[in-house]
């Protein structure tokens, strides 16, 4: 009964006001539904087709995934991702935590030092890659510098060594992202209840023990966030490879993102590229779902 009253009494303007929030959100909802989920579905469909330079919808079933399975380059890219991701994430975490703890000791000019640690994060991966490509240049980079400085037998040619080129990517990526990890942990450290630390000091614990046993374990959520973001950067990283090695030498430093781009847009293997993109999505989900699950569960506990 009252709803009838609402309709008759509300002026047209009022009705518009009621709908405004939905109207304002509508374009974004459309964008998300089409541009996010619709496109994922589309890519998913393409991954079951034999599309090459142009999309064609001849159904080939799981053939593209089977081709990926048999593709040596895809395996190299995947293994590289594991190696690159594992090293990049663990080194960044260790360095970031270490720097954060050191910076937490009432350091003079802390803000200035923090700025230095964090500035690489503001740069494009392309710039980072360009810079490190030059630094690691065999013959003219660090290689030559250290020999000039008197270290005669020094050789540093990882950038052209198929066995070691991935480590070059790791070095550049760590340089770029470890400051960010530092910032995350520093913020976390500042949030730790100081009375806990004082209580531990009263109990006679040494400073390293306090950090290792009490402070850092309480930063579990920060650790988890950092891990998530680093993993995400690793899976998506494309720019760094493109600018530093372009996947080379050969395809020794290929990553899935590079593989996907090369096959889809330059080699006319659209179906295969779509399949590799879907596998990348799967990898992200494999990390994301447990994370979100634990986040939601954690919220319920609060």
């Amino acid at each position, binding site marked *: *009964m*009252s709803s009838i*009253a*609402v*309709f*008759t*009494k*509300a002026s047209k303007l*009022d009705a518009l*006001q009621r709908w405004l929030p939905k109207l304002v959100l509508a374009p974004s909802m459309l964008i998300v539904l089409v541009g996010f989920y619709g496109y994922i579905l589309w890519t998913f469909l393409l991954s079951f087709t034999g599309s090459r330079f142009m999309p064609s919808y001849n159904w080939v079933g799981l053939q593209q995934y089977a081709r990926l399975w048999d593709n040596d380059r895809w395996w190299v890219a995947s293994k590289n991702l594991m190696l690159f991701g594992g090293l990049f994430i663990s080194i960044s975490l260790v360095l970031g935590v270490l720097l954060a703890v050191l910076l937490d000791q009432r350091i003079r000019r802390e803000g200035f030092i923090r700025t230095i640690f964090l500035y690489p994060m503001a740069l494009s991966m392309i710039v980072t890659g360009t810079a490190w490509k030059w630094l690691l240049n065999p013959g003219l980079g660090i290689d030559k510098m250290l020999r000039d400085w008197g270290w005669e037998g020094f050789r540093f040619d990882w950038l052209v060594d198929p066995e070691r080129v991935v480590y070059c990517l790791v070095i550049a990526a760590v340089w770029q992202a470890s400051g960010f990890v530092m910032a995350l942990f520093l913020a976390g450290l500042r949030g730790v209840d100081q009375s806990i630390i004082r209580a531990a000091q009263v109990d006679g614990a040494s400073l390293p023990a306090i950090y290792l046993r009490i402070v850092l374990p309480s930063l579990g959520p920060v650790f988890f966030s950092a891990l998530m973001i680093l993993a995400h950067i690793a899976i998506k990283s494309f720019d760094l490879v493109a600018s530093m090695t372009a996947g080379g030498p050969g395809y020794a430093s290929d990553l899935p993102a590079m593989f996907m781009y090369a096959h889809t847009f330059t080699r006319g293997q659209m179906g295969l590229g779509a399949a590799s993109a879907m596998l990348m999505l799967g990898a992200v989900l494999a990390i994301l779902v447990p994370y979100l699950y634990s986040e939601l569960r954690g919220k319920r506990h609060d």
Partner: protein
Amino acid sequence: MATLELRNVNKTYGSGLPDTLKNIEIAIDSGEFLILVGPSGCGKSTLMNCIAGLEDISGGAILVEGQDISGMSPKDRDIAMVFQSYALYPTMTVRDNIAFGLKIRKMAPADIDTEVARVAKLLQIEHLLARKPGQLSGGQQQRVAMGRALARRPKIYLFDEPLSNLDAKLRVEMRTEIKLMHQRLKTTTVYVTHDQIEAMTLGDKVAVMKDGIIQQFGTPQQIYNDPANLFVASFIGSPPMNFIPLRLQRRDGQLWALLDSGQARCELPLGAMEEGLESREVILGIRPEQIGIAQGGDGSLPSIRAEVQVTEPTGPDTLVFVELNQTKVCCRLAPDAAPQVGASLELQFEPSKVLLFDAQSGERLGLLGAARPQERAAKVAQLKGR
């Protein structure tokens, strides 16, 4: 100023969910001060939002001056509200905060200035007009929030727990000030609170709510002296009413309540109540101030000897706790009359002030139907005179 009537108001957030508001019936006169009081989650704030139009009702009608406003948007209802968090616009000065509603309503700038000046003078915030809310103390923010409501001269004022963010001292001060303001301006006001002292001191009418249902609607005196059920009796009053579980006995044509302190026993005559009560579990309710120390020689009131377990001096009076029927009972005594812990006291009761509740349902059990306490007192006197 306007009358306000709520007719059978219902509110639910969807089928299957429990009703948030159920069959709310309230009517107040122009200029009256209505208190909605109850524990958190009882629906009092929802009801206030429904009156303001910030939430739609699912059924019933809300009438202001006899006109149904339940379908109108908030801006057309001519209702102003003071929020618990004050909700002052943080980027605007106090002046702009007060003037905002007037500007939206396209009042002439000169009139706005006059109105802001009037309200500022009324609330003594003239010196704060150029400041931002962040630069004000809690009490000052409270005044500005009231000023914003007053500036529009609406038909009805709504207050949503306006004092709960203030410290204890300021709360008492502002309470008096709100009462003064209402006495001067005679505005129709609805005031939501969970504080039963505010409910008692401010309201012309009080509606006690629980689980979306009005438990009792009446004057503060009615609510205090004649609560409709156990919930109302327990919610209103501080320290709260004592509740003593017991069984009644019928003898000599009337009911008796048996009290046992461990040291002594006492029978309280309750008058000729309805049949069948003697077989039921009942709860006897008596307020702390209605238990006194028996004066020597005065045997007209029933009394019982009990051991003092704890005393809590509050200043104006001292709360003394004894145990009756294995229940802790609080007595409010004058400080100079208060005994030591461990001492024995002869406590006397005013049987006419005693209330009975059903132990299962919590409903009030009437003395010979729906007798008022005064009538009951007369009846008890009659019985005694015999």
